[in-house]
């Protein structure tokens, strides 16, 4: 069980007041707040052991390298990867998708197909669009149903021998949708030899993930959305697939031997990590993973489900509020909302005056907003440090804001 009032004490930011009110932070879908253990761990590295990793032959470098490489083990356990070598550090999910799209699509043939869904984040659209243009590939989008879930019949129809990549969100940052990953995986593997990539940006912070059990091929993870620092993320992939892929970035640390006319690559994972890695950020992410593991991801999951249940009822009862949220029993605690005739930025500016932090805009899901005929929505997302009181405050503030703005 997560006791929010105790847990909040681990996050220094909640000592702040906003506009004279308690901070009601409901924008963890954009970035999560950081516990002291993450902040302190990063300060500790800079203050006591900072040295570039992998190269030094002295104590500081050896300590930093050990700490940095150990984060791979922590992540391996966290998502149950087959080996720590399968953990590739990236800047974040966006870089993860750019790396995968460039590296995978290079090996495809003109006319090959990629399947995405209509509700993907731009990070899981644009890199594929760029690669599709470069290598003459075709992108198909799975329809989203009226209840904001994947249309599985449509998905099955799209799958064919031409399908080479399927890349789908694991938890929607707009509707909270949680696709049945195992089911999608078996549909894909039955009909195609396509690679299945999961966008784990919102999924991994909130739910216990076991990549072996899910049977997927790759997952992209964002560090800053799971209590870690910005500028660090992970791509996990099956080792046999990673070994076949070419690196996208060249530079120091990713090579075995370099000649004037050619080079050979270091083994996985290092061939994908050119240059000095963000080792302090990676170590900060390690502290975040420890923090979440100590809470137990099963408790994190239960907290998210209970809070979502409460928030859904609360928000759906507000007169005049349209809530874009899946009807499924299981979903993320993410609610995109709109009020007829009121701009989302007006509502979110007004909510800020109540100390409530939400996001306004298209949340990097512009095509789906367009499909729903919405210019923008405002979005509230709950995380481990949020409780029912946060959604009570949000609901009251929304009602007040609607009164002021209409």
């Amino acid at each position, binding site marked *: 069980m997560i006791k929010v009032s105790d847990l909040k004490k681990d996050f220094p930011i909640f000592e702040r007041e906003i506009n*004279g009110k308690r901070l009601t932070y409901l924008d963890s879908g954009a970035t999560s707040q950081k516990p002291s253990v993450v902040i302190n761990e990063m300060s500790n590295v800079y203050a006591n052991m900072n040295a570039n990793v992998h190269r030094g032959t002295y104590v500081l470098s050896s300590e930093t390298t050990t700490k940095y490489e150990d984060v791979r083990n922590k992540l391996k356990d966290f998502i149950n990867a087959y080996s720590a070598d399968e953990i590739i550090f990236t800047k974040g999910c966006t870089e993860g998708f750019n790396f995968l799209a460039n590296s995978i699509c290079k090996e495809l043939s003109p006319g090959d197909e990629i399947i995405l869904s209509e509700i993907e984040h731009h990070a899981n659209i644009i890199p594929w669009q760029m690669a599709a243009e470069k290598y003459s590939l075709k992108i198909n989008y799975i329809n989203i149903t009226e209840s904001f879930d994947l249309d599985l019949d449509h998905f099955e129809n799209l799958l064919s021998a031409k399908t080479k990549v399927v890349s789908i969100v694991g938890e929607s940052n707009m509707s909270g949708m949680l696709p049945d990953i195992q089911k999608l995986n078996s549909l894909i593997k039955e009909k195609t030899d396509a690679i299945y990539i999961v966008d784990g940006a919102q999924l991994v912070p909130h739910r216990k993930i076991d990549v072996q059990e899910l049977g997927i091929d790759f997952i992209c993870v964002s560090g800053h959305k799971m209590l870690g620092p910005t500028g660090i993320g992970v791509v996990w992939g099956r080792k046999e697939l990673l070994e076949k892929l070419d690196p996208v970035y060249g530079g120091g640390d990713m090579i075995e031997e370099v000649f004037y006319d050619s080079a050979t690559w270091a083994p996985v994972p290092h061939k994908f990590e050119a240059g000095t890695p963000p080792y302090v950020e990676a170590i900060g992410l390690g502290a975040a993973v420890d923090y979440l593991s100590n809470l137990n991801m099963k408790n994190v999951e239960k907290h998210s489900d209970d809070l979502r249940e409460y928030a859904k009822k609360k928000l759906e009862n507000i007169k005049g509020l349209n809530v874009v949220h899946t009807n499924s029993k299981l979903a993320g605690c993410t609610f995109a909302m709109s009020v007829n005739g*009121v701009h989302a930025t*007006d509502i979110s*500016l007004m909510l*800020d*005056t109540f100390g409530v932090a939400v996001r306004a805009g298209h949340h990097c899901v512009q095509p789906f907003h367009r499909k729903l005929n919405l210019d923008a929505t405002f979005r509230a997302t709950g995380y481990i440090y949020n409780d029912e009181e946060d959604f009570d405050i949000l609901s009251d503030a929304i009602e007040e804001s609607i009164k002021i*703005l209409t």
Partner: protein
Amino acid sequence: MSIEEKVEDYKKTLAMFPNPQEKYQYLIEQAKKNEDFPQELRIDEFKVNGCQSQVWLVPEEKKNKLYFKSDSDALIAKGLVTLIASIYSNEAPEDIANSKIDLMEEFELGVILSPARRNGAFSMLKTIKEFSQKLAN
């Protein structure tokens, strides 16, 4: 009234509202008073780039003075652009081009004029300045 005097005037008015919510309500009132923007001018040519909501600014020159019509699909942004348009309307292009007032510093408008959202308000001012510059030359 000169641009400086108008800014001073608005500064005093805004200072009367101690908290952000009341300041926003003042902007909303300004927005609601600005109702004569013709729908047919809500076109891309007059759209101000870089705003989170859609903002339109239409310049008009009459007897060597500039006037600005403004609109937005969001109320608070509309209030802000209404205020900016009224500061720079009924002024000579060269006076607008030469004015060095930093509205962001003058008006304490909380997050809507903070660096995080500067793009929007900056773009409104940039549009006005660029148009004046063109005419002043």
